[in-house]
């Protein structure tokens, strides 16, 4: 096979770059049971290489954070932390600390110790079932951030009792995108849109005010609830329209209220814009669980958080709380009426 040396090869470049303007390149990989994708202007000469390194980071984090593999660091914590303190990697310790802080700030609506509840409702194995009251009580006794002791000095984690487990499913994707975005930055990339399973998005830079992203309407699949322009901001969406089971004529969504131990209800979809993917992910779950009250209170007390909530009752209007300097809601669909609302100050 004819092989060109690097100089000959590079001589193709200028025409190539001209040819590429007006295109996006999407670099994708499957990780964390979903599709991670980095979208870049095709003219970025090192873009695909950088995106590949960024996705390597996601692979590494999945290997560290998953509860679906016995050899992950989180699985090791779940196995051993009831016996004694387990020293954890610096990044993971920071994620656990952030999770604890977000738990406090959301009045317990966000809780990474909900693992036993996820199991007893069958969502861990994706085979939902209603647990009996004894099972549920047993699981609830093992849930709560008070069961998780973090020692910053020793960077260790310990569980208060056996049977406690952590599950980073509601923050891990956003965290992975943050780290992936950082890798892109290290490679000199200033413009990219990263997404994980559609639900988590991190926008780096972006021309004309940022990346235009649609948000699907939770009540009307195929319709857009809103389009949002994102620039140096992260966005996450939670909902239970896709993952649920029906038993005894009742519908049970996969997002559990860690405080009551039963599936959250009242909200059909919660979309949150924040400055990091991890925070956006966690708050989207928290607001889905805690509803408009929590979202309103949180956004009042915390700057740079924007929340868009669609109530479960289709006759109720979507609600917007707070604002973020990197997000402009360009169009929102309310009763088929598209109004233009800019929330950028």
């Amino acid at each position: 096979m004819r092989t060109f040396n690097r100089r000959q090869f590079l001589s193709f470049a200028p025409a190539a770059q001209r040819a590429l303007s007006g295109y996006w390149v999407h670099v994708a990989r499957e990780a964390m049971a979903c599709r991670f994708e980095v979208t870049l202007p095709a003219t970025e000469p090192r873009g695909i290489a950088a995106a590949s390194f960024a996705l390597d980071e996601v692979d590494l984090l999945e290997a560290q954070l998953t509860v679906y593999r016995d050899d992950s660091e989180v699985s090791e914590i779940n196995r051993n932390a009831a016996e004694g303190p387990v020293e954890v990697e610096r990044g993971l310790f920071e994620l656990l600390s952030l999770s604890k802080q977000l738990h406090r700030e959301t009045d317990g609506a966000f809780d990474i110790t909900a693992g036993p509840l996820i199991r007893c409702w069958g969502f861990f194995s994706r085979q939902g079932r209603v647990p009996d009251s004894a099972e549920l009580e047993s699981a609830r006794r093992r849930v709560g951030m008070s069961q998780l002791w973090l020692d910053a000095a020793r960077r260790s984690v310990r569980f208060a009792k056996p049977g406690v487990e952590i599950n980073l499913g509601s923050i891990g994707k956003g965290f992975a995108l943050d780290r992936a975005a950082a890798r892109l930055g290290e490679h000199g990339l200033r413009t990219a849109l990263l997404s994980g399973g559609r639900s988590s998005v991190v926008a780096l830079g972006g021309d004309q005010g940022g990346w235009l992203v649609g948000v699907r309407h939770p009540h009307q699949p195929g319709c857009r609830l809103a389009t949002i322009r994102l620039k140096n901001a992260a966005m996450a969406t939670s909902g239970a329209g896709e993952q649920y089971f029906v038993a005894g004529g009742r519908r049970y969504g996969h997002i559990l209220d860690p405080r009551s131990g039963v599936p959250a209800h009242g909200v059909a979809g919660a979309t949150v814009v924040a400055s990091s993917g991890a925070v956006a992910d966690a708050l989207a779950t928290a607001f889905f669980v805690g509803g408009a009250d929590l979202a309103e209170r949180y956004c009042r007390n915390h700057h740079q958080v924007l929340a868009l909530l669609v109530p479960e009752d289709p006759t109720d209007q979507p609600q917007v709380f707070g604002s973020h300097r990197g997000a402009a809601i360009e169009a929102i669909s309310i009763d088929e009426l598209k109004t233009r609302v800019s929330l950028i100050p």
Partner: protein
Amino acid sequence: MNLTPEQKTVGRRNFLKALVGTPALVALGTNAATRQPPSGGPVKAALIGTGDQGRLLLGQCRKEFIDLRALCDINPNRLDRATSVLVKNGWAKPRHYENWKEMLKKEDLEAVLIATPLWMHSEIAVGCLEAGKHVLCEKMMAWDVAAAQRMLAAAEKNRRVLEIGYQRFYNPMYQAAYENIILPGLLGEVHFARLVWHRNGSWRRTEDPPPHFDPKPWGYADWDHLLNWRMYRQYSGGLLAELGSHQLAVANWFFNSQPSSVYATGGIYQYKDGREVNDHVYATYTYPQGRTAIFTSIQSNKFDHYSEQFMGTKGTLILRGEAEAFLFNEDDSRSTSVEVSKQTSKPVMDASESLKADAAGHPGAAATAEKVDRAAAYGLEIAGFCSAIRSGAPLRCGPQRAFNAASACILANESAAKKMVLAIAS
């Protein structure tokens, strides 16, 4: 080639990894010439042959590049159907002709697209070139080698652009694979290419003739001979011409070579319905420097779908269905996919809650839409042809490569008939 989802994941990942660090991602866009309308305005053109392939081309024509004024076909039903494709896409109703020679006389044309049955390619293409028209002719180039040579000679003599419809040369995915994997030698030493096009169906068309239609004056014994011309030797080169030549053109391109000999076998094994071309074809092409390409096309099993596979000492590249690329490194299990889309004023993606995995545990579909697809390659091909006419931009395939692919496929049919290894003149 049927890959498990896991294999696809690995292959996609590696395809991307191979592209990493190569500055010339030419591939992922297209030739600059095909993206900007050429100065000099759209090329005044007509289409001869408005069957399935002709309509496919019409659907991909862009007004900035081409000014379609007339359609020609001996079948009035096909003319009407093709016209509705154009009108639906906002074109003015083109003028209709039954006879291409009459069309050339009456119309002010610079170029002609030809998508007739194979046996007519050369006569029409040469006639158009002699009349000073540029020609984009569907593949395969011609029914026999002499006819293909006449096309080459006519293009050269009349100094006209002649391009043959091997759309893979205009497909961004193939360009990416060639520029960023083949050229830098990422597959290592490649000794084997497997060209596979497997289907499970008769290849036979059913359609009523237009009222009072008589195909005899046009050289077809009856309606079935016209409708199912691919089945009859007089008009067709069978699976090798219709399918194999696409893939052989890619093998020649990626090997930067052409086969020196061919041995083919096959027969009519499944559909003994009066057809004259083989429904199973197996052709082994020998290239210089120890390389071999094996083309198989069967019509009794579709498990393998269609793909071109290049097996090297360092890795395997699989181009599947003109839509997906996979790279498997010999000693590395990682892979990434790369796709391309056009920038538009629409959202880049639609966010939603996490989509649940399917029953097999595979993640939901991509969040982004409108990737550059297989059909788009035809549009880029037509744009590239028009740009070549206006600005002299180089053709991506060109008549010589098309000739090489055609002559190898024509000889493969001969080899199967004679049960002999045949040398292919270079």
